[in-house]
């Protein structure tokens, strides 16, 4: 008889844990499981009650529109971030009580830092940047869609698979406890036979394929689909950073995939890649992981740099200073990022020469990074700066990110690294670059492009308060950790015995509460803005006096983005048009637009891979085989079918475009003084002069 449920047993259901063995610890564990289940049921119930299934299916889940896919990535990111932030706060609460103890069990603590790290990197940060690239790349290069829209949807499906598997691990079984890096042999079968490391392996490997294909898709889109006249050196800086990130994705994901699959072979089939015995060598894992891991940090932060570049010039109302320097800096960062991975294990007993070489290489990366910060400062110089919510984030970024850079330089020196590696210093460092660098960039970007995506601005006051909460909360939560690290407190440690640490912990706890409030602030902002959406509406599409092509279309843009593919004569194309007084023109004639049809490919990929990952985790072999075969079969059948494009007739394109142009022409436009009040309908009376 085949084993229907593999090694899955009823006891694995976390929902019941608390009732078997009531304690604070199991209450937190079971509570999280219940929250997941109840939230899922609530969402399903709401959709049913609101009769939204058809809408959800047709307009979103099966859509191949890059804008919708981008928004769905952001939704995944925010949902997972709720979990990640919550876990962060629970961990801080635990550590505050951790002088010789702590409210949670050590095992649970370990699960928390592991899921928190994994979720934040792979299912928050990655979806955020992928979402932004999805939304913006085609709009910025004047294209109608991605090069491969269906593949794009499948990538989204694979990302969702990874997120789903980590969510399932909350309810069924347990997640891995070896941190987001999951170093063997600790995560090997000998030491942890349980399902945890398997969940990790499959969540990461499967979503990794998705990320690789996203990178491929973006790279081809940028290479092949730019509007006529848009040379590489006329691309907006965000697109440049997206291009570099895409290339990094294509080359940096394979090491992660290889590491994961080798780990899976070790665990499931008794191979000896990373085991203690029979010639296994965990140092290979460390190398593979960080050959991915280091480029990964630049994968994450480069698009955020792109956002900061766009926003400095936008809100300083001037041309970007040092475009070429920025491009060169971005390119060199991408290349060098492949040559520094060893700085994550200066402590593995490498020869002094190797340690020194990688230390120097790491230092070299700091040069272009430093240049970027100076370039942004120069962009602000001589501007007329509007201190809007995105600028608040940018201020926090400037000040805090250089502190993260300083700690990076300190860590790059192996002699110091031997002392602070694996301590709280590292925790402070990477939160310092990830929060102000990446997350602030994303939130600033949300403020800027939300009106483009949904047709109304976000409330400025709520947005600014939230931004300040993030900044102050960050300082409280993470800056003290630098000192704890210098005093030798290891990371991932559930308890401490030095009473001197306690005051620091309390400060961190306060900060974490602020961050929780800040996270809630995002939703308050959204709520307030939705209620005031009529007042905040900017249907004409250019609320910030933008410079690049995405502002040269309505808000939200039509599914075809542009009524006619623009011809580009120089950088900052839309700014030029406005300066020349010829934005919003109607062409002599319109053409039919062809768009790819909806498909359920992404959903099918998601269902099949989730089933596969779950089956491999629980050893349900029949399901594993069935899901792979099923997917291949579906794909083969799919390839036999014709997929006729959807044609939008020229008249419809014309109707939409002409209406928009007319509305824009009738509106006399607002100056920047009225940018944040209800007079701003998305038509900018440009008060900036443009390059000649």
């Amino acid at each position, binding site marked *: 008889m085949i084993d229907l449920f593999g090694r899955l047993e009823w006891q694995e259901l976390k929902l019941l844990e608390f009732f078997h063995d009531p304690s604070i610890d199991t209450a937190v564990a079971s509570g999280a499981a219940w929250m997941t289940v109840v939230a899922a049921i609530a969402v399903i119930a709401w959709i049913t009650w609101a009769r939204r299934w058809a809408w959800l299916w047709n307009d979103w889940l099966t859509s191949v529109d890059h804008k919708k896919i981008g928004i769905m990535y952001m939704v995944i990111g925010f949902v997972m971030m709720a979990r990640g932030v919550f876990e962060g706060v629970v961990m801080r609460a635990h550590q505050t009580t951790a002088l010789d103890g702590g409210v949670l069990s050590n095992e649970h603590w370990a699960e928390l830092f592991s899921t928190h790290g994994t979720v934040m990197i792979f299912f928050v940060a990655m979806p955020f940047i992928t979402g932004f690239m999805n939304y913006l790349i085609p709009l910025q290069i004047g294209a109608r869609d991605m*090069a*491969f829209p269906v593949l794009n949807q499948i990538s989204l499906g694979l990302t969702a698979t990874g997120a789903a598997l980590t969510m399932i691990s909350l309810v069924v079984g347990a997640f891995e406890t070896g941190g987001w890096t999951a170093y063997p042999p600790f995560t090997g079968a000998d030491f942890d036979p349980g399902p945890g490391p398997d969940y990790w392996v499959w969540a990461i490997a499967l979503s990794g394929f998705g990320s*690789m294909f996203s990178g*491929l*898709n973006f*790279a*081809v889109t940028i*290479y*092949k*689909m730019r509007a006529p006249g848009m040379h590489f050196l006329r691309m907006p800086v965000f697109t440049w950073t997206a291009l570099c990130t895409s290339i990094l994705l*294509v*080359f940096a*994901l*394979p*090491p992660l*995939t*290889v590491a994961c699959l*080798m780990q899976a*072979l*070790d665990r499931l*089939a*008794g*191979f*000896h*890649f990373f*085991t203690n*015995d*029979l*010639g*296994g*060598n965990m140092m*290979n894992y460390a190398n*593979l992981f960080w*050959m991915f891991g280091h480029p990964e940090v630049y994968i994450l932060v480069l698009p955020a740099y792109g956002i900061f570049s766009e926003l400095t010039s936008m809100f300083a109302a001037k041309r970007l200073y040092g475009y070429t320097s920025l491009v060169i800096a971005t390119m060199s960062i991408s290349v060098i990022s492949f040559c520094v991975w060893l700085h994550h294990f200066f402590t593995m007993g490498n020869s002094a020469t190797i340690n020194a070489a990688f230390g120097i290489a790491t230092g070299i990366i700091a040069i272009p990074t430093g240049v970027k910060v100076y370039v942004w400062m120069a962009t602000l110089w001589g501007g007329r700066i509007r201190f809007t919510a995105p600028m608040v984030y940018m201020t926090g970024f400037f000040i805090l990110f250089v502190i993260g850079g300083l700690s990076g330089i300190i860590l790059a020196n192996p002699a110091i690294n031997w002392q602070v590696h694996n301590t709280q210093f590292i925790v402070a460092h990477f939160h310092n670059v990830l929060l102000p660098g990446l997350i602030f960039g994303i939130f600033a970007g949300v403020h800027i492009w939300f009106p483009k995506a949904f047709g109304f601005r976000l409330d400025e006051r709520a947005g600014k308060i939230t931004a300040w909460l993030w900044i102050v909360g960050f300082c409280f939560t993470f800056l003290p950790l630098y000192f704890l690290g210098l005093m030798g407190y290891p990371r991932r440690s559930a308890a401490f015995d030095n009473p001197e640490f306690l005051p620091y912990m309390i400060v961190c706890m306060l900060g974490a509460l602020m961050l929780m409030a800040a996270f809630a602030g995002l939703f308050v902002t959204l709520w307030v803005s939705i209620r005031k959406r009529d007042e905040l509406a900017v249907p004409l599409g250019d609320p910030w006096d933008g410079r690049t092509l995405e502002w040269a279309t309505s808000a939200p843009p039509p599914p075809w983005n542009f009524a006619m593919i623009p011809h580009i004569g120089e950088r900052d194309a839309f700014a030029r048009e406005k300066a020349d007084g010829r934005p919003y023109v109607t062409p002599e004639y319109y053409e039919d637009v062809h768009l790819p049809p909806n498909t359920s490919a992404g959903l099918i990929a998601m269902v099949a891979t989730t089933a596969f990952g779950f089956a491999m985790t629980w050893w349900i072999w029949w399901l594993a085989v069935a899901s792979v075969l099923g997917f*291949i079969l579906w794909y*083969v059948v799919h*390839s*036999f079918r014709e997929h006729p494009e959807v044609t939008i007739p020229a008249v419809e394109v014309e109707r939409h475009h002409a209406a928009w142009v007319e509305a824009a022409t009738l509106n006399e436009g607002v100056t920047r003084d009225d940018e944040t009040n209800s007079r701003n309908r998305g038509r900018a009376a440009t008060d900036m002069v443009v390059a000649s």
Partner: protein
Amino acid sequence: MSDQQTNMHPGLNLGYVGGGKHEESKVFGFWVFLMSDLVTFGLVFAIFGTMRNATAGGPGAHEVTELRSIAIQTGLLLLSSFAFSWASLAMKYEAGRWRFLIWFSVAATSGLGFLIFELLDFHHLIEIGAVPQRSGYLSAFWSLVGLHGLHVAGGLLWIGVLTLQILKFGLTDTIKSRITRLGLYWHFLDIVWIGIFSLVFLAGVA
């Protein structure tokens, strides 16, 4: 054929109505995929390199290398690539779909032959106890050779599906573009095999 500019694929001989640009993107995208795949193979090669001596007292390169069989496999795979080139030429010069299919099936048969010999080798390895569970070296060996074998198996499936599609639809533009990509893939696997052949087998017993 007024606008030569749109014929971005001299080897493809596509119809010249629209579409050409998009097919070109697909081929370009496939190149990018192959680069990524090459990195994957490169990493497995590197791991194999570091594990070359991790035999843990078990079978080593001499025991796992059956040169005669390896030579046959190499011959078959080269033949397969060669036949594929003829198929591509047949497609380019519109020599008719049957001419194309003959070469195509030669490519498939020799690819299948390669796989059969490889499986026989694997079977032999299991018999002498050279299983991947025995040592780090064997884990790496099986993974590297097996990864290539899996790619070949995937390619064979692809050939099969395309054959059916050709029989059903004929050599349409879409299918020609698919064949081009399959060709890239197939020759790519040959190159990887040359690497395995020389670095794993020849260098192993040298």
